[in-house]
């Protein structure tokens, strides 16, 4: 497969996953506000921090309330990680690989893009009640995933599609965990006290994990939640699950047997998966959750850099160096 094409499909997929995750974050925060009347639960700034873009928002000089932050995260055309920007960039990438992806996928991405553009024009409705918009964004992206799984050959293009998506998901799951944990329990020694059931349930709901968590662990306990989101072997949004699948995609692309590495991307992701796989949640807590996720994100970024260097670097698509 052309390097340029691989780059485009990887980033197309990452941007779509990113858009979906932002919609999930917005949706859950909105529901939190409904559960805690009087504005006590109206914590919107943490969402911006979860994206790692506090500085970008602060530079706008706006108060951090529901309206400004939904507008920022969903529609701001100048903010590169807004849902609108993600869709525009996903579509730009998709446009250059229309011959690779199924027609149905292109049409979904295209109509999805137009949907978000239209929503941005009448965004007051979304600011008042983001539920329908967020739900639609989630559904659209799930449809695209479904098309990828069932209408695309599971060949190299599919592996790059999955790779981008899984790395993005692992990153976002770790970020949402980090931020919520940071708000709720600023000190690692506080684990096990001051549970705020509503907040934790909301966190799980944000990544469609509440029901799966209940079946696995029953009661809401912070340590078990951390374990579930970071280390669960079955839940498809947990960090370890996503990274192991991403590793399998990498090896499918290169043909290197699992357990070995032939390039820096395989080496880094293999080390990361190995470390996580042989770690217990007690180790994570002992280390400090924030320090742990911080380190995790750094290492995931280094995997992404290695993917770029190994497969795309001769030919970045659409000024690929700027995709991130």
């Amino acid at each position: 497969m052309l390097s340029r094409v691989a780059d485009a499909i990887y980033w197309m997929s990452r941007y779509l996953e990113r858009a979906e995750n932002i919609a999930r974050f917005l949706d859950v925060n909105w529901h939190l506000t409904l559960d805690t009347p009087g504005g006590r639960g109206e914590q919107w700034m943490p969402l911006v921090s979860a994206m790692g873009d506090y500085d970008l928002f602060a530079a706008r000089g706006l108060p951090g309330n529901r309206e400004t932050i939904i507008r920022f995260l969903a529609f701001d055309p100048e903010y590169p990680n807004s849902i609108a920007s993600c869709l525009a960039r996903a579509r730009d990438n998709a446009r250059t690989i229309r011959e690779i992806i199924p027609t149905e996928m292109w049409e979904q991405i295209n109509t999805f893009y137009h949907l978000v553009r239209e929503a941005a024009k009448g965004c007051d409705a979304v600011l008042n009640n983001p539920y329908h918009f967020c739900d639609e964004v989630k559904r659209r992206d799930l449809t695209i995933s479904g098309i990828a799984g069932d209408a695309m050959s599971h060949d190299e293009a599919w592996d790059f599609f999955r790779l981008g998506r899984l790395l993005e998901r692992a990153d976002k799951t770790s970020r949402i965990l980090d931020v919520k944990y940071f708000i709720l329990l600023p000190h690692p020694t506080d684990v096990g006290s001051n549970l705020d059931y509503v907040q934790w349930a909301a966190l799980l709901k944000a990544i469609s994990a509440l029901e799966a968590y209940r079946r696995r662990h029953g009661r809401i306990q912070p340590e078990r939640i951390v374990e579930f989101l970071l280390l669960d072997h079955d839940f498809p949004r947990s960090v370890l699950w996503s990274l192991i699948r991403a590793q399998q995609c990498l090896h499918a692309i290169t043909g290197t047997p699992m357990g070995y590495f032939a390039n820096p991307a395989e080496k880094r992701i293999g080390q990361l998966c190995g470390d996580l796989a042989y770690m217990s949640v007690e180790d994570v807590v002992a280390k400090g959750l924030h320090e742990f996720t911080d380190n995790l994100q750094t290492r995931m970024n280094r995997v992404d850099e290695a993917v770029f260097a190994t497969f795309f670097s001769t030919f970045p698509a659409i000024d690929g160096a700027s995709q991130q």
Partner: protein
Amino acid sequence: MPPKMDFDSYDVGPFFDEMFTPDGKPRPGCRMLHDKIASLPPGEILARQAAAEQAFYDMGITFTVYGHEEGTEKIFPFDIIPRIIEAAEWDALERGLIQRIRALNLFIDDVYHKGRIMADGVVPRAVVESSSGYFKECQGLNPPHGVWCHITGSDLIRDEAGRFMVLEDNLRCPSGVSYVLANRRILKRAFPQVFEAIDIRPVDDYAPLLLDMLHAIAPQATNRPTAALLTPGVYNSAYFEHTFLAQQAGIELVEGRDLVVADGYVHMRTTKGLKRVDVLYRRVGEDFLDPQVFRPDSLLGVPGIMEVYKAGRVAMANAPGTGVADDKVVYAYVPRMIRYYLGEEPLIDNVETFLCWEDKARKHVLANLDTMVVKAAAESGGYGMLVGPAATPEEREAFAAKIEADPRNYIAQPTVSLSRAPVIVDDHFEGRHVDLRPYILYGDDIRVIPGGLTRVALRRGSLVVNSSQGGGSKDTWVLGPGASARS
């Protein structure tokens, strides 16, 4: 109450109408469609037209409008009422096109070898060598099977009497075939029952035929050739077509920066290293193809590719140099080429053409500018032309000066009243002028895709069908043998 749309008040006018005879009756092949449309409930035609436009929008077959709100996109205008060509009519056209392409190909091959036709004084050497598509770098090249023009789109028009004539031959990178395929898809959604009821020749095998042609011209030592479509990139106005054709034919879509010449072959840069390319369907003009041979400032091409081509290690469609025959002055000589190479009379005529570099012709043209269409020899897309009857005296004067300054660059033709076909205008039908661009593939043999792109001049009275000048398109139905008898 939405309007009831029928043809009761449709005015055929003093033109040849594709759907109606001069006394307003539907032509035999159009009767079924005519009755279907007349039987639809009020509002239905407009609803189907709107659904078709939405489908184009959702498929992303759009262009970006600049100067408006950022990123506003529009579809290319499309009219859902198809243009119908009857079986016998088409069969005659097909024979004529095959004859024409055969002669044009022999001409190109001759030009780049012995130049017999020039030595024999049939086509002036000066005309050939001043054609902007003539590249002396291609002298002596031998493309596989001696075929140069693998993909051609010749524009046909019909005069008041309904006679088909060739208006020009597009041998460089004729575009539009993706719209033939897309229009057909959309029409099947709009009129499924009509497709069931009458025998309409399919166009869907264009992509497999394209692939067969590309494989047929691959270097002979290649077992399973790798073909790719070379595009200038995402900002090219035909980019949708490039992705569409690559997808439909199952070949790679590559840009110049994806290709590299190494070890005497052309390769793609892939995630697993270099991979050899055997055939390129190039949608990049010769000028930009190889900065070592042609324009040195080109960033779209592949340095060194012409060396590989000359060594027979990569094939290209169309062969570099083919554009020599895509010149409006050379066009005027095609009937003579047919007689010279094939010893046959042309089955489809040219439009009468005056060559301004001939003194007598130029005087005639300048004296009759108000009735003629004048075109720049190397331009396309409806640019650089004067439609005499529609022009102001000042415009005609300005054009006369251009002709005097550079006579070689201009030809003139009498204004032909192109045939018309009904199109939806607001809530009723009106006649608009149309032309027809069939697509012809030449690999092992010559194949003509049934029908082609019917282009419509959407502005009332306009004769210019180019999409860059406000033109739209229609689906073109060629009826199968016996179809009109059954309907």
